[in-house]
């Protein structure tokens, strides 16, 4: 898999945004719907939004310089013991660097222009639960540090090796533990090894007519074990639930031994649920090896949709009403105006004059006839799933509510493009990096009554901080309400700016991101909805869960892993 993926950016080697010879943007490869298409308005958008220009380009170095990589220090006795287990391992520089990072901006920047101070000394590839037990035993015996590695899509600095770690760091790559162990059709559960990647899991389940329905934006690359370890959330949680709703049973190997339950039941009252010590533990307690997860029959019918609202306020009010009536479709998202324009810029060249004429007509209808201001309006994207009949009924219910809030149905195509944006946006960052534009996303959850204030204030704070920090071009600061709940919503922000003229862009970026997080907390938002804490957001943990709460987590860590074998220093 490592061969297929970029070493210094997001996703597959063959998929990326480029500017072709005519200076038009194009997305390469055949993996995505956007693949091979020309995006005629994208260049103009990028220039207008960031003040970026194709003439000002930075380039990453072409490949890893092996001489820069810190040496692998592993003691011979451990290697002997390891060889005896027949578990495959590697001390190769590229293998180790590949597992030394997630996908935070600063990590990618280091890959492109520098080198990590500390990386794993050795990578091991267990193929089953028993292998993991052996590795953890050896680590305890030789006092090593283990950092579990799944899909490597972390955006919380969770995979970075603590610089001050003197022990040998073992990167435990779960990717070879990727089988579905069994499927139980009567209880609709499946037992799966934790290293399986999201898209493989869905593909293999689909062969038997099932799915988990768990679709985080990173599902092409992230792993089941990683979802459990970070309390992941999926796009379609309204039907299938978040990871904590999906998981029936977890098996985890810790230095203290194996933790599991005696049965696989929908609910039990046996004190605090031990699964909740594991979910969100971010690799600090042990390695999740096997997970029993709920499955559902693959839905018969899927339909995208979209609604245009005159402004963001009305859109949020509509989403709130949908949540109140508990009739949210599989996914419902509301993007603000900036993100709507962003999505618009990624519209491929249209095939025929007829479609372009239709587009023009639609635009005319919305802006002129209905009086929507194209610089204020915003769009909700929808995804319905289930029986055909029920979907259509459901669709009508949602559109009826939308009408009450001034919404206008805006077609399937806009909806589908909205969701596609989610998957390709990470590729866009790599393109931006080539043209002095850096950016990232972050997220939070917030009660309904504070959604609007939080969105407005955080965006404003970003703009102000950029100005204060000497960023010379106005930043892109945009958000979407990406999940709805009974009591609140999940809000997702994109933030990017052109850093020409700034000597230390990553530092400036981090300062601004930190200010944005401060603003979120001051507005009654959470530290994280699903990205997790890692090392990036540790400083706010005490404030988030109180001293005593932190102490509770610490005491679990102390009992389970007294010698800090799982020493990635996340969370606590």
């Amino acid at each position, binding site marked *: 898999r490592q061969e297929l993926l970029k070493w210094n950016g997001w996703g597959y080697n063959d998929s990326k945004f480029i500017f072709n010879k005519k200076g038009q943007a194009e997305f390469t490869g055949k993996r995505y719907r956007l693949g091979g298409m020309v995006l005629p308005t994208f260049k103009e958008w990028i220039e207008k939004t960031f003040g970026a220009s194709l003439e000002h380009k930075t380039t990453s170095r072409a490949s890893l310089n092996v001489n820069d990589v810190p040496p692998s220090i592993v003691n011979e006795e451990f290697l002997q013991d390891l060889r005896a287990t027949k578990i495959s391992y590697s001390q190769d520089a590229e293998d180790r660097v590949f597992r030394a990072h997630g996908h935070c901006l600063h990590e990618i920047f280091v890959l492109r222009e520098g080198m990590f101070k500390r990386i794993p000394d050795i990578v091991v590839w267990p193929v089953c639960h028993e292998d993991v037990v052996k590795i953890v035993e050896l680590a305890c015996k030789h006092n090593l540090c283990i950092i579990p590695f799944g899909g490597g899509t972390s955006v919380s600095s969770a995979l970075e090796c603590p610089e001050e770690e003197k022990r040998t760091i073992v990167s435990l790559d779960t990717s070879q533990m990727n089988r579905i162990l069994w499927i139980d059709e009567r209880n609709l559960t499946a037992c799966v090894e934790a290293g399986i990647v999201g898209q493989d899991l869905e593909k293999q389940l689909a062969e038997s007519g099932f799915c988990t329905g768990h679709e985080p934006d990173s599902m092409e690359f992230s792993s089941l074990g990683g979802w459990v370890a970070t309390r992941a959330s999926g796009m379609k949680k309204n039907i299938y639930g978040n990871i904590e709703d999906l998981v029936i049973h977890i098996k985890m190997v810790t230095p203290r031994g194996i933790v599991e339950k005696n049965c696989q039941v929908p609910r039990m009252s046996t004190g605090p649920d031990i699964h909740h010590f594991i979910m969100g533990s971010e690799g600090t307690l042990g390695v999740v090896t096997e997970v029993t997860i709920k499955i559902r029959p693959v839905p018969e019918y899927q339909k995208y949709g979209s609604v245009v609202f005159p402004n963001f306020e009305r859109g949020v009010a509509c989403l709130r009403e949908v949540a109140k009536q508990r009739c949210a479709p599989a996914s419902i998202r509301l993007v603000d105006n900036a993100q709507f324009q962003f999505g618009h810029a990624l519209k491929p060249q249209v095939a025929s004059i007829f479609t372009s004429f239709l587009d023009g007509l639609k635009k005319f209808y919305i802006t002129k006839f209905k009086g929507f201001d194209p610089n204020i309006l915003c769009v909700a994207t929808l995804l319905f799933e289930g029986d055909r009949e029920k979907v259509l009924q459901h669709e009508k219910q949602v559109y009826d509510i939308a009408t009450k809030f001034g919404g206008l149905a805006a077609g399937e195509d806009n909806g589908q493009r909205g969701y596609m944006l989610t998957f390709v946006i990470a590729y866009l960052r790599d393109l931006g990096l080539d043209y002095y534009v850096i950016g990232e996303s972050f997220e939070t959850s917030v009660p309904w*009554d*504070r959604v609007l*204030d*939080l969105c*407005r*204030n955080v965006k*404003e*704070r970003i703009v102000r901080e950029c100005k204060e920090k000497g960023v010379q071009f106005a930043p892109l600061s945009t958000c979407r309400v990406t999940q709805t709940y009974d009591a609140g919503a999940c809000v997702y922000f994109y933030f990017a700016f052109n850093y020409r003229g700034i000597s230390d862009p990553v530092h400036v970026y981090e300062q601004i991101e930190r200010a944005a997080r401060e603003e979120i*907390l*001051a*507005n*009654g938002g959470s530290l994280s909805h699903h990205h997790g804490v890692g090392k990036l957001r540790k*400083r706010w943990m*005490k*404030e988030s869960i109180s001293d005593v709460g932190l102490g509770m987590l610490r005491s679990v860590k102390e009992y389970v892993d007294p010698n800090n074998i799982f020493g990635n220093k996340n969370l606590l």
Partner: protein
Amino acid sequence: TVAKQTTEWLETVSHSLFVCSQQKELTSKKRDEFEDILEERRLSSDLRYAMKCYTPVIYKGLSPCKPNAIKSAVLQSEQVQYVIKQLAKEMGESPDIVQEEATEILDEMGHSMQLGAVRFFAFTLSKIFKQLFQRVCVNEEGMQRLQHAIQEHPVVLLPSHRSYVDFLMLSYLLYTYDLALPVIAAGIGKADFLGMKIVGELLRRAGAFFMRRSFGGNRLYWAVFAEYVKTMLRSGYAPIEFFLEGTRSRTAKTLTPKFGLLSIVMEPFFKREIFDTYLVPISISYERILEESLYAYELLGVPKPKESTSGLLKARRILSDNFGTIHIYVGQPVSLRTLASGRISRCPYNLVPRHLPQKPSEDIQEFVSDVAYKMELLQIENMVLSPWVLVAAVLLQNLPAMDFELLIEKTLWLKGLTQTFGGFIEWPDNLCAKKAVMSGLALHSNIARLVDGHVVLNDKQVEDGAVGEIVFKRALAILMCATYRNQLLNVFVRPSLVAVALQMTRSFRKEEVYSCFSFLRDVFSDEFIFFPGISLKDFEEGCFLLTKCDAIQTSQQEIYPTDKGGVIVSFLSAMFRPFVEGYQLIFRYLSKETKEAFTEKQFIPGVRNFVFQLLEKGNTQCYEALSSDMQKNALAALVQLGAVKKKKMSNGFTYSVNQEAVNKILDMFDARIPVQKPVAARL
């Protein structure tokens, strides 16, 4: 624990930065130039001016709405509805009845801005102001800053309050500069301002709204009022204007701030309903205060005439009088977000629905108080001091009569000293000292006049009246004169209290001088404006300013007056002597004459008679102790020092004196015993 230490450290740093910034602003002074806005009015038509195209700039996020829409938004708000439901439940009444009551309250205080009324005011005020004042000077840069601020964030205007003219003038000014007219939270007593039916209604149409001056127990009133202010603020509909001092200062000395309104206007930011709020300190200085004699009578306990419409009409008489120049200095807008950064724990606001009424936490209360003091200090900093203010200060130390030439010389000398201390003197260019003093005397001929080369107070009309009558007339003149000297006091208070402490301790040891300074600062904490809790900083600033004018020299351990510094030190302590002596008299009254619990209504006449008798017998010369303002402040100081107990009763507050404690404080004043205060470890 590291994190804890770090946050604590950060808090300390940000707090000291907060304090520092306030200190720094006191020393680095670059002030704007003034423009006379009446000049143009004298040259062109008032009618055309009143009918000019008026399209004020507004807050960027504003969706325009009518006053009635705002009123109904207030009434329907979760906040007000919550209180209505609560009250209905408690009183066992239907919510409709309570709602009705709320509507009435809203109508009573709500403004309804109408352009016609605004134009009417623009026209009449032009006429009146031109009649009353020679010039109305404004710093244009301040107006430009304000214009920017209004577009950026909701704005709160915080003017000083010396006269009813204040809010008329400010609205007039904003109209002149094409800015949105402020919504004014003006206090109304029962028969006070709302009694002025016509003027009141006109004012309301021009944008003022009214709050009852006391509505302690009325939860509905408070809820409606608070929500009204916050709705105005959140919508950015118009700037909110109110007086930190709460009421007109009768002494021209800045009153200690009230916190209620300030904490209301800060709440939308704390709850993050808005991104930021600008607080704009505005200093309005009068060369001659319209109500000067009214105030003096009031301070001496002669009941003031009610401000009825007919009363105001009678006030037409004063239209023929000359009240000199007004200076309005619009200060730098202060971002509340910047002030609050790192100081407020966000938890209390995150864990309770935002529409529930919530008692502010201790750190919020402390923050509100700090901001209030900071804003008042900024007002003080930009108050314009006229030459007459210096004359009054000199004259009061040289009663009953002073040689004219000496007065000029001393005034000039004081001008230099005031500037060294950071005072903002408007001394017309090239105007020689003699002319400046003469024009001051001309403007204030009701207070003092020139007789045979000597300047004397105007207190001699009843030369052969009864003793009491003479004392009263004299007190009146002195209090009026003091109104002008008082404008200097907050600029002088830090170095002066060091000077007083030097004289009181008769010691050069820094430690002793400091503890005496600190004691005085505590005693006078209601009299002058001190930023809370930074006694040592104030002391250092006082010492610094005295060193700057070569009055003292300091070493690690000691403070000495220099040879020529004696003049300054004794001048400064003489300037504050009325307060030191006045407080002593009042304390003496409390320690001797009051055996039982008393109310304020009993206290004021009691102490007044006590002082009056001493004055009649010639046992004291401290006329200012007759001022009810000083009497109330002195009582409040004793309450704060714990020597008097204040108890809330059904009919208001009662006080009971701890004789021993008061005697002890008196002894400290007389320097019979050393000041007992824990001395700060690091000096």
